[in-house]
């Protein structure tokens, strides 16, 4: 309808624009949108990964509500997110403030802090496995200098999840640092100058100007971080495989095991949908909160 109203030139521009976005659009439809619907369909079946799926209604979902292992994984995943996100945001912001200085060679520091982001997760996990090793790990070596007995970071249920949190914060801080840096550079210098003239000190300028004006960035980092951390898989798969005592079993890991180890693709699809709904609810809550607070993206 709208297309008809366009003149020839406008139609040509619209078609060209569509051609430009077509590869991404087609990719997303084939590899993202269609699989979502297939997965939704599979969640109502007993599909094992082979053969023909049989419809079983809501059985997978009703089973899941009584599945303690699943809810333990949901809790662990939430705990992981709750620990990672504030730490990640705080450290990213501090790093961004540091690398926002006009010092010669600051680009080198920006690149160094960003390096963990481009390290593949499996490689990063292997490095941290070595750091955490109770016998030859660097961290335990440092502890031994203070006569502290070795800690079994990844084998003690009291420390395993926190240890993975530390690794995840290390790896994710560089990315968010960049987002915060962009946010910081978007704040007009005039505001700081005016505040200085009015006698505001550094800390006051930070709390009264920087933090409030970064609110949209906080929200973006929080929501994107939430979406990512709730899908955590690789690091727990490599570092602990969900142990000890299921203290690091995330929903992502449980979905993988259920689908590929136990050959319960339908059941795993139902788990994925519950996780998807959880992510959606939390994300929408974040957006609604943003709207209520009048935060502009």
């Amino acid at each position: 309808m709208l297309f008809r109203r366009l003149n020839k030139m406008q139609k040509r521009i619209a078609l060209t624009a569509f051609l430009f976005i077509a590869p991404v659009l087609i990719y997303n439809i084939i590899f993202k949108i269609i699989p979502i619907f297939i997965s939704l369909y599979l969640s109502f079946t007993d599909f094992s990964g082979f053969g023909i799926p049989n419809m079983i209604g809501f059985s997978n979902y009703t089973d899941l509500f009584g599945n303690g292992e699943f809810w333990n994984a949901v809790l662990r995943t939430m705990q992981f997110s709750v620990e990672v996100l504030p730490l990640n945001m705080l450290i990213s912001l501090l790093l961004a403030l540091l690398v926002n200085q006009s010092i010669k060679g600051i680009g080198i520091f920006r690149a160094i802090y960003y390096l963990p982001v481009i390290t593949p997760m499996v490689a990063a996990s292997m490095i941290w496995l070595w750091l955490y090793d109770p016998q030859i790990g660097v961290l335990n070596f440092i502890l031994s200098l203070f006569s502290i007995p070795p800690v079994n970071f990844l084998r003690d249920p009291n420390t395993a999840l926190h240890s993975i949190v530390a690794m995840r914060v290390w790896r994710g801080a560089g990315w968010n640092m960049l987002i915060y840096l962009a946010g910081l550079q978007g704040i007009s210098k005039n505001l700081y100058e005016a505040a200085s003239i009015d006698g505001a000190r550094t800390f006051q300028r930070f709390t009264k100007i920087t933090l409030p004006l970064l609110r949209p960035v906080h929200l973006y980092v929080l929501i994107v971080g939430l979406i990512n951390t709730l899908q955590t898989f690789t690091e727990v798969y490599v570092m602990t495989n969900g142990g000890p005592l299921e203290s690091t079993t995330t929903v992502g890991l449980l979905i993988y095991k259920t689908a590929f180890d136990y050959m319960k693709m339908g059941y795993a699809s139902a788990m994925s949908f519950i996780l998807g709904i959880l992510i959606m609810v939390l994300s929408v809550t974040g957006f609604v909160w943003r709207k209520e607070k009048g935060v502009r993206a």
Partner: protein
Amino acid sequence: MKKLILVVLFVSLFLVAGLAKDRVTVWFAGTTESLMNEVESTMIPEFESENPDIELVVEFIPWGELSTKLTTSFAGGIGPDIFMHGQAAIAGFVENGLIMPIDGFLSSIEDVSDFGSAIDVGIYKGENYFIPVFGSGRLLAYRADFFEEAGLDPEQAPDTWEQLRYFASKTTERVNNQIKVAGLDIPVEGQNLQQVWTSFLIENNGSLFDDEFNPTFNSPEGVEALEFYVDLILKDKVASEYGLTAIGNLAPIAAGTTAITFIDVETMSAAKKYAPDIYDEIKLAFPPERYRRAGFYSFAGFMVSKSTKNLDSTIKALSYLTSKDSIVEINEAIGSLPPRQSASEAEFIASDPVLKKFVEGAKYAFGNPNVPFWVQARDILAKYLERAVKGVMEPKEALDEAAKEIIKLK
């Protein structure tokens, strides 16, 4: 002219069709370089020269990715004709209609009786689905030098449960109440915990499942075996409650952080390669006895996909890959245990006392049960065993809960 072109086209079509080879795809599990070299440089050319009408396409899949890749490839209709997997996967694949029984083709396999009882590990509900190719086992290993230092006879391995406990306590070294050298290294989590504990279960005359796939491991024998296992860690404190980790390429026994352990062929090979001096101090023995001895042995072998398109060619490939010569070549390349009895006389076994000991130990072998829901049952059992080992649950309670959860999978 047109007719001539048509004739040429038809002739070339028939020629191409005539020259086209049957393609048989085989997935090997594991990416050991020596095996890949052997298969690619010797076995494939040999097979293809003997069977010029068949193209043998071999892929090597890391063990960790095997299940995922099989699931996705079969779901996508591009699965291999023949693939390798552990024997424990048989029942699951059968129930999912993925593999075909091979009883009808066994006559094509060279001297099947040479496999002895190993060929039976592939039997599920009365039909055979599996030809074993290589095996691995666990035997007891101890450090003779540590035994000597502790005043024990370095030639005397722990022969009973009581001796195992006593020898482990004699060789345990502590500094500031922390274990410096664990008398015994036993797994405390995961699949390894399930495998090693199951050897104690069977030594105590217990079993994992009955013929109808009902859990039987929570019998009094099972509870006693788990109590003994847990006591070694929590009461006698001769084993680390967190388990020991390898130091670089060295397993704890080679790294000197334990005196006794249950070891497999691959770990012994690594010790020989990376710690040749210490390797001489590591002695092998059969598992300790309670009412009987038991060591976990498992086979990886070939299964035939139900969706194979060229069955005749597939069977020819299967027959070649499991022949006496091929089994020796494969096992020699990876230093593992051949399932064919004749292969135990092969030079690489006869000249290696360690491999020879593992071959002898096969008489005490037990493997994973052919239960359709085994992988999930194994993980559930491991989860509750870990709870007992970490003191979160009493052994009886842990086994009962595991049985309760596993029976729901039936």
